[in-house]
């Protein structure tokens, strides 16, 4: 077992002994067999010396124990790295930025402290997964929905703190936005509550975010200023009904108006579900462009020729599926209105999609699951607040994928919410991919994901392999793409520790003012630099100067 950097064996042994006094010897993991389980299962450095590894792990099950562990860590200068459920696969998993750190595994803190059906809110501990919260609600027959990401085993708190997103209504898809109130153990062991939680006796902790003064919650997301031990979330009551509709437009340049009208509809609240942009020319996630189109794309045929092709095959160029939640009559009227607005685009055609009344029946859920796992439907389980792991069928071995990967990392830049930005991103990324020898599925037809209603996000998965050389090349390509994206003002919204320093480098306005400010905060709040050293590029003083 390695010791943490800059820590003597004697100090480490003493610290481990104090950790054992705090949490019980059963919950301090020092042996290799247990500690190896804190690797990142999808590490981009898999099997290499640079792979981030822990020296030990400690698993508290109360706030008081967390405070004791943090105080001990300070006393002996032990770098610690909190994880919640440790399932941040694709963004670093459970491994620390600084190899040799002791992982603070919060999985045992898995209490659902409060769920209010009247207020549609919840207060949870870090070890609570989306599955846990969903089951809690279902078992009690509460008429509430959660908003979950694709994999349901992640932590409700951890996902929000890493700025993750989901699939239901506009106001809930940004998980950090949808939180209300936190409790935090600071790096010196002090305990803090934010928002109305700072007022003893307040019953509005999960109702009003700000309390008074600067809203400091953001400091504890994608950072290393404290250990979040409780977090409140806004849920929604189960809606009455849902429906979808698709608009198809004939020309390449129609994308610009399509996005502008979509933005109008989302920003006025008419469309409140997660829209899906696509192209009838290339179909769904698993499909390939047909040979004639592929030939046109391969030779870089001008747009007019592709439009001719689209006309010949009787399909449009772009599609947008809009989704609505609400009262049955209201959402029907909203879809009518949306069609009126989209009709400003000459040649736009419309198709009614599916509709549901809630709650869904068991059979309906089974149907949705079945179709989702083969990529043949647009509305998937998370859009109904149902957590699952069905998404993993996409990377896994299957009938259509005989050579599964060992995992993936996400390249996930934010681009502006315009058709022009989509076109530019296609051009730039296709060119970069060409230079790097990366496959491009259908040049010019790459469309962003719409978690956030005020911006777009692209999600590109880079595979992890068992071949070290392949992983090295993958990392180089990834890093090149981060730089190319930054040259165009497109920045990552979230990234794995392997790339966090690089990504923070790209947010360089005014001589890296953001980093410099964060470092000053770090030095003030965590002078011994014990908490998640290096997370999102924020290094403590003693490691910056090294």
């Amino acid at each position, binding site marked *: 077992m390695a010791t943490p950097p800059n820590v003597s064996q004697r100090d480490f042994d003493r610290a481990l002994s104090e950790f054992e006094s705090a949490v019980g010897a059963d*919950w301090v*993991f020092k042996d290799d*067999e*247990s500690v190896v*389980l*804190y690797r990142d*299962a*999808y590490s981009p450095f898999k099997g290499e010396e640079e792979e981030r590894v822990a020296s030990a*792990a400690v*698993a508290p099950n109360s706030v008081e124990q967390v405070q004791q562990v943090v105080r001990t860590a300070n006393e002996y200068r032990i770098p610690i790295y909190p994880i919640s459920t*440790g*399932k941040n*696969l694709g963004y670093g*998993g*459970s491994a620390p930025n600084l190899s040799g750190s002791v992982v603070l*595994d919060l*999985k*045992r803190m898995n209490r659902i402290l409060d769920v209010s059906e009247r207020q549609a809110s919840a207060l949870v501990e870090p070890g609570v997964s989306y*599955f846990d919260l969903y089951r809690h609600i279902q078992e009690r027959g509460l008429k509430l929905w959660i908003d979950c990401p694709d994999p*349901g*085993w992640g932590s409700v708190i951890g996902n929000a703190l890493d700025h993750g997103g989901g699939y239901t209504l506009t106001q809930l898809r940004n998980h950090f936005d949808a939180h209300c109130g936190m409790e935090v153990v600071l790096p010196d062991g002090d305990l803090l509550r934010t928002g109305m939680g700072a007022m003893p006796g307040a019953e509005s902790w999960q109702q009003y975010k700000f309390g008074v003064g600067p809203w400091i919650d953001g400091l504890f997301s994608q950072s290393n200023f404290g250990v979040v031990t409780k977090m409140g979330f806004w849920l929604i009551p189960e809606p009455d009904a849902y429906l979808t509709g698709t608009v198809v437009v004939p020309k390449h340049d129609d994308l610009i108006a399509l996005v502008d009208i979509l933005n109008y509809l989302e920003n006025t609240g008419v469309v409140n579900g997660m829209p899906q942009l696509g192209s009838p020319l290339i179909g769904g996630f698993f499909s390939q462009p047909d040979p004639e189109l592929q030939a046109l794309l391969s030779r870089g045929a001008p747009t007019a020729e592709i439009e001719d092709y689209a006309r010949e095959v009787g399909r449009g160029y772009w599609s947008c599926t809009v989704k609505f939640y609400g009262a049955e009559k209201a959402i029907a009227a909203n879809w009518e209105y949306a069609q009126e607005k989209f009709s400003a685009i000459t040649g736009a055609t419309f198709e009614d999609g599916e509709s549901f009344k809630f709650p869904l029946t068991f059979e309906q859920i*089974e149907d949705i*699951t*079945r179709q*989702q*796992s083969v990529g043949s439907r647009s509305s998937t*389980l998370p859009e109904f607040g149902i957590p*699952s*792991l*069905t998404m*993993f*069928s996409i*990377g*896994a*071995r*299957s*009938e259509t*994928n*005989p050579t*599964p*990967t*060992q*995992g*993936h990392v996400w390249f996930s830049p934010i681009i502006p919410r315009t058709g022009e930005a989509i076109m530019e991103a296609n051009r730039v990324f296709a060119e970069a991919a060409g230079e790097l020898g990366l496959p491009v599925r259908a040049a010019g037809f790459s469309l962003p994901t719409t978690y956030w209603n005020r911006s777009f996000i692209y999600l590109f998965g880079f595979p992890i392999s068992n071949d070290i050389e392949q992983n090295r090349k993958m990392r180089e390509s990834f890093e090149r793409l981060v730089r190319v994206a930054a040259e165009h003002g497109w920045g990552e919204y979230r990234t794995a520790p392997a790339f966090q320093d690089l990504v923070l480098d790209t947010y360089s306005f005014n001589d890296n003012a953001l980093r410099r400010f964060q470092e000053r905060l770090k030095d003030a709040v965590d002078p011994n630099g014990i908490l998640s050293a290096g997370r999102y590029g924020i290094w403590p003083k003693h490691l910056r100067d090294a």
Partner: protein
Amino acid sequence: MGLAAACLWVGSAFAQDADPARGKVVFDYWCAACHGEGPGMPGTLALQALYQGQKPALLEARTDLVPELTRAFVRSGVSIMPFFRKTEISDADLEALAAYLAP
């Protein structure tokens, strides 16, 4: 008795103390979302593609999952299946799970 045989003996004795009923609880909580029955199960789909009918794709229908195999997969993972920590599936729970899935 040779060392290897002694280890095997210890292993199976430990497994005999493990409660398969507890193992089912562990399976339902940690494994079923990918390895359960029904549509959209990535683990079941992967094993179907791997075995092509030569073995059951459903772990619960397998008759050859000796405890060593269960332990290996839970602690090492495979392909996109990650490994599980002891705060998720403790050693005791792993033995129970292994007993539940054992022939």
